[in-house]
């Protein structure tokens, strides 16, 4: 029985794929049943994954389990397999993906069934949602970089399909396209990174297996050998570029807020809990390489911190409930990268886990609110998500309110909710490792986090009742939530881990998760800065400070959005430049549109004109020259056949005369 579940780990992959295939082929016939098939199979996969997790727990020393399926691409000295790796990091990711995934599938049954848009497309939705799970599992289960890249792109595909789910809306299809293309910019770097790795280690790691790459790299590192081409910093930066795209890091973060055009369960699963953390997973997975490139790690930390601040500031001014949560996601992903960058590896993964729960919950909560608004008769997608149309939802949707509050507290980092422990560990980890600057900025971001989170809570659930009269009547007439148990049960299911998941890492730096993940980061810890674990004096101090910061943030939110609600207006009047910059997301979209998109199009037009005028022009020019000369020569063709015959005769005679009578005489 030992390793029983590890040996059937392929089943974890196959079940969601099966769901996708069934719904692709028979979805239209199945109708609403499609959703239950998907949910059931994904949940089954979750159960198998739990077994896998337990098997991993029982393996001595977290020894990785490798499972070869078949040879995928054999070409010369390049030979990549379809093969899987299960180690503690994978096991944790499996739990997150399938745990949150199952809950979101359950939720989607309620959310999509009641969808009032004309094209329901239930079958399509439940084809791509399990397909996403499948792709994400490939990503985390792969034992080599190229198979990871397969999952990497496949999650991009499902994300594209689900963001553009309501494809008749131009904003949605634009957002889908933008997400894919921006991700591709990152993938450009990622692919180059893979190739560069292969070129350097082709003699030792022909199959791009992590273990082989690490071994080859470590050998070179230990013997101080230079790489054949480039160096480890360049490789890591290129790989990180992929992570920046997928995990929406500055300056490639622009696609994530737009991705909110997709259905809310999609935002919860793909754009908060799982897919966007793929970059974090990848960097964590490749930690031995990154540790060899401290400069690259510094860049990771800087980008992470910048993003954490950037997301938090923009989230302050957004009025769309989902956009606020989306920018919060960007910001929290920045935390994770900052954690990776400073060497707080486990803390970053820890934050990934807790964030998956509370951010998934935040999105599902927002989804419930939006769904309630729809239910109350506000169908316009912009209106129904605008927080300026909400207020006093506390009484109208109490379960949503309480769970949303839990998630907000977790996100803001209030003791003892999940986010507190993980976020603090990142902040503490950076300060204790001497990265004062990173830690300080992250602390400031934590203040902003509490501020924007509770701005949302106060405006939506407390404060002035801005719900239109008609809708308010529906809300007050019945408890909207009661009618849709599928919408609140998942909230409760996620609220539990959002509250207690923090204790996976308790006490700081020596909790269960640290112990569990330590084999994965053995090399990194060995070569990184050691810090003292547990409740040491500086750790406690930082805990206290960050709690204070969060509480001040909440207090500020309370002041501005509950007590003196004219404060934000005053602020925007006093500092219109800053306010507009925040509202317009620091003008990133405008900048990219002008420089990249318009510039690219202008270049493309230029090349096309060049193609038509110069290249094809030359071709047609030659043809024209020919026909002009042909036109002149044509006059020799009188059409009088006997004339030609005479010419031939004369010619032959002349030739014969020349050859036989003139030439021999010489």
């Amino acid at each position, binding site marked *: 029985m030992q390793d029983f579940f590890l040996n059937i780990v392929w089943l974890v992959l196959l079940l969601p794929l099966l769901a996708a295939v069934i719904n692709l082929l028979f979805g239209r016939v199945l109708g609403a049943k499609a959703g239950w098939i998907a949910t059931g199979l994904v949940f089954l996969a979750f159960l198998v994954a739990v077994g896998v997790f337990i098997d991993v727990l029982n393996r001595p020393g977290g020894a990785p389990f490798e499972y070869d399926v078949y040879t995928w691409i054999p070409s010369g000295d390049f030979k990549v397999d379809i093969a899987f790796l299960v180690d503690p990091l994978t096991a944790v990711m499996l739990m997150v993906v399938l745990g949150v995934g199952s809950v979101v599938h359950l939720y989607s049954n309620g959310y999509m069934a009641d969808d009032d848009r004309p094209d329901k497309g239930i079958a399509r939705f439940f084809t791509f949602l399990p397909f996403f799970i499948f792709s994400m599992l490939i990503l985390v289960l792969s034992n080599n970089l190229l198979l990871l890249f397969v999952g990497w792109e496949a999650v991009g595909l499902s994300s594209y399909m689900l963001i553009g789910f309501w494809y008749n809306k131009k904003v949605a299809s634009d957002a889908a396209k933008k997400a894919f293309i921006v991700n591709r910019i990152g993938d450009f770097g990622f692919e180059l990174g893979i190739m560069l790795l292969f070129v350097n280690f082709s003699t030792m790691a022909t199959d791009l297996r992590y273990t082989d790459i690490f071994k080859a790299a470590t050998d070179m590192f230990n013997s101080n050998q230079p790489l054949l081409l480039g160096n480890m910093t360049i490789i890591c930066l290129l790989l990180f570029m992929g992570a920046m795209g997928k995990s929406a890091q500055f300056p490639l973060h622009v696609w994530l807020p737009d991705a909110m055009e997709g259905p809310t369960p999609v935002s919860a699963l793909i754009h908060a809990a799982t897919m966007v953390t793929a970059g974090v997973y990848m960097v964590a997975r490749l930690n031995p390489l990154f540790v060899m490139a401290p400069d690259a790690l510094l860049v990771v930390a800087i980008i992470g911190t910048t993003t954490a601040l950037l997301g938090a500031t923009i989230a302050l001014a957004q009025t769309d409930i989902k956009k606020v949560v989306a920018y919060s996601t960007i910001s929290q992903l920045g935390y994770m990268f900052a954690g990776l960058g400073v060497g707080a590896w486990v803390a970053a993964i820890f934050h990934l886990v807790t964030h998956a729960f509370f951010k998934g919950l935040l999105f599902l909560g927002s989804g419930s609110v939006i769904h309630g608004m729809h239910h109350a008769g506000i169908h316009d997608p912009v209106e129904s998500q605008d927080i300026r149309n909400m207020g006093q939802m506390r009484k109208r949707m109490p379960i949503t309110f309480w769970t949303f509050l839990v998630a907000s507290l977790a996100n803001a980092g209030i003791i003892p909710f999940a986010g507190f422990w993980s976020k603090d560990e990142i902040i503490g980890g950076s300060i204790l490792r001497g990265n004062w600057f990173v830690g300080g900025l992250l602390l400031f971001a934590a203040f902003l986090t509490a501020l924007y989170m509770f701005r949302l809570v106060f405006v939506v659930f407390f404060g002035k009742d801005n719900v239109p009269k008609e809708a308010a009547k529906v809300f007050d007439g019945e408890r909207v939530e009661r009618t849709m148990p599928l919408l609140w049960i998942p909230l409760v299911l996620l609220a539990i881990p959002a509250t207690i998941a923090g204790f996976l890492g308790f006490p700081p730096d020596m909790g269960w998760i640290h112990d569990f993940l330590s084999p994965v980061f053995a090399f990194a810890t060995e070569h990184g800065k050691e810090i003292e674990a547990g409740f040491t004096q500086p750790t406690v101090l930082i805990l206290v400070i960050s709690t204070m910061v969060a509480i001040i943030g909440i207090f500020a939110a309370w002041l501005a959005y509950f007590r003196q609600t004219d404060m934000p207006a005053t602020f925007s009047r006093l500092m219109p430049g800053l306010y507009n910059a925040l509202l317009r997301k620091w003008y990133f979209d405008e900048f990219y549109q002008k420089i990249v998109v318009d510039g690219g199009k202008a270049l493309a037009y230029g090349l096309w004109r060049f193609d038509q005028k110069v290249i094809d022009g030359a071709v047609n020019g030659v043809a024209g020259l020919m026909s002009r000369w042909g036109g002149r020569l044509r006059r020799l063709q009188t*059409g*009088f*056949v*006997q004339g030609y*015959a*005479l010419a031939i*005769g004369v010619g032959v005679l002349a030739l014969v005369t020349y050859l036989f009578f003139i030439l021999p005489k010489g």
Partner: protein
Amino acid sequence: MDQVSTVSQTTGVPLAWFLAVGAILFCLGFIGVLTRRNVLVVFMSAELMMNAVNLTLIAFSASLNSMAGQNFVVFVVTIAAAEAAVGLAIIISMVRQKPTVDTTDMDLMQE
């Protein structure tokens, strides 16, 4: 007389005689093609030219004791037959379009 100048030991007719006949036939045909307006006559003249060449080929073939010339002739005769069939068919269909056999009147392709 050596081998080259006589067509065969049996007849003893010199090669030059055959060539002369061939040349005369060829010239007759050529003049016919050039001067006549009737398309049928032009056609026949062309056939005459071809046969003149055939004669020359056979003559050389016999005199050189090589079968290559005769091979050619067999091909030419075959092609000539095919060509006659096709050519006459074309002439007939042209006459159906426009009842004339005069070459100067056949100017469909002329601008």
